[in-house]
């Protein structure tokens, strides 16, 4: 009798442990398998360039791009261009985030704020972002201002919409708890409303960072005398496809980097969520 009691539990445990190790190995194999196709593409690309199937005017070889990258890092061209573009993105993002979050809090916390802010934001949201470029050039000229303004505008809307809906989505029962605990208006905002809106606001942050890079790329294509966009446009004049591709790769890497930063932030800020992978 005692064996029949103990055996099911040992049986139940054994397969679990037996499955754990192959599961891990399978995930690693899967991760490696995902690398195969991109690497194969690189190899084919390199071979095609070497065999003369791809001319340098159409697309430079991966090795040529890599050596150009080293050259441009060495003479400072690439690092300077990145610094200029990152500064534009950061300035635009900071402005747009402050506006988007500030307006969302104003609209989220009171009916009056909602009536004052939300209709305007919903109207402006319908305007095509890049369609505003001609106006921005007329208003701000062709210096840094229109580029930063375009990024800021692109960033403000996703952050506004998500933070606003995050604030409105906070559980009313928790607001009652705040009332019973006599937290006061500011305590309610600080302890309940803002932390409660954070998960949704972080979704908005990821969206807005995507828009920020896109807006920057477009703005830098149109008129720039420095930055990554300038580097790419300049390279086009001289048919330097290696520099063009390098610029695109750097844009992509910057986008992935900021996305990874937000995911790290989510991990840190949302550990309270049950089952959130820490």
């Amino acid at each position, binding site marked *: 009798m005692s064996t029949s009691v103990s055996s099911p539990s040992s049986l139940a445990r054994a397969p679990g442990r037996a499955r754990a190790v192959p599961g891990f190995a399978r995930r690693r194999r899967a991760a490696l398998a995902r690398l195969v196709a991109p690497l194969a593409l690189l190899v084919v690309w390199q071979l095609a360039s070497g065999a003369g199937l791809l001319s340098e005017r159409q697309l430079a070889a991966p090795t040529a791009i890599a050596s150009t990258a080293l050259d441009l890092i060495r003479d400072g061209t690439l690092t300077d261009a990145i610094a200029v573009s990152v500064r534009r993105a950061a300035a635009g993002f900071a402005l747009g985030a402050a506006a988007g979050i500030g307006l969302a809090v104003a609209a989220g916390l009171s009916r009056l704020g909602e009536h004052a802010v939300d209709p305007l934001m919903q109207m402006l949201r319908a305007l095509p972002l890049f369609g505003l470029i001609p106006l921005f050039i007329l208003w701000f000229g062709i210096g840094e201002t229109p580029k930063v303004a375009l990024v800021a505008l692109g960033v403000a809307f996703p952050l506004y919409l998500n933070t606003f809906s995050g604030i409105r989505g906070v559980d009313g029962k928790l607001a009652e708890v705040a009332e*019973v*605990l006599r*937290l006061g208006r500011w305590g309610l905002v600080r302890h309940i409303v803002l932390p409660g809106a954070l998960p949704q606001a972080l979704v908005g942050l990821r969206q807005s960072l995507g828009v920020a890079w896109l807006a920057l790329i477009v703005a830098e294509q149109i008129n720039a005398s420095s930055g990554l966009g300038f580097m790419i446009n300049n390279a086009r004049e001289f048919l330097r496809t290696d520099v063009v591709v390098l610029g695109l790769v750097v844009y992509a890497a910057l986008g992935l980097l900021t996305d990874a930063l937000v995911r790290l932030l989510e991990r840190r800020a949302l550990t*309270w969520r049950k089952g959130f992978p820490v």
Partner: protein
Amino acid sequence: MAQGLPGVTAEAERADTGRPRVVRVRGLTKRFGERTVLDGVDLDIARGEFVALLGRSGSGKSTLLRALAGLDDATGGELSVDGTVAVAFQEPRLVPWKRVRANVALGLRVPDPRAAADKALAEVGLTERGGAWPLTLSGGEAQRASLARALVREPDLLLLDEPFSALDALTRITMHRLVLDLWERHRPGILLVTHDVDEALLLADRVLVLDGGRIAHESRVDLDRPRHRDHPDLTALRAALLAQLGVTTDEGTA
């Protein structure tokens, strides 16, 4: 505070003459549109008295509790609470992004809120879980944390809104003991809203039945605690209360 008004039940007078009151409600009405939920409720709770409020669902039990908690305004009548109020809700309503200790200490205005929270957590047997996230707690643990959050404020009136109804039967028994233990140590006045007749009989000094928007029935339970549900006095009371609630006495006497 005015002395006994006409129409006050004899039992309420008795509560008057004993200890000072923490709650005094006269002719309380509450309407939601056309629907009258409370229709002239009179209620007194003495300091340190344990009162249970029974009623069918939709009878207005929670409405009365919410009015006492200051969450809803009454439509008419008088309501006064003399002292501080704390509430434990049916769902524990812990703030999910604050650790258990921070939940207990939330809004606490004492010199060392953290130490006070730890002491309260120790009293409900949750010393180990102070650093845990609320969503990782079991139902019973979460409800104990909710009790700690209410008690740490040392309330004169503790409002319990069906706090055990979502717990399993075994956890509920443990929680009954815990509540009695905490009540005996801190002596707040308690209003326990419940639909469980046995729970009311095991815990309370006085059991009220809310029906038709008013207190329709009142029983005193003068037995020592801990009580056994098979005590002959309780069996009789149970049958009477179940009859009040519209349940045939067959179930009560079985």
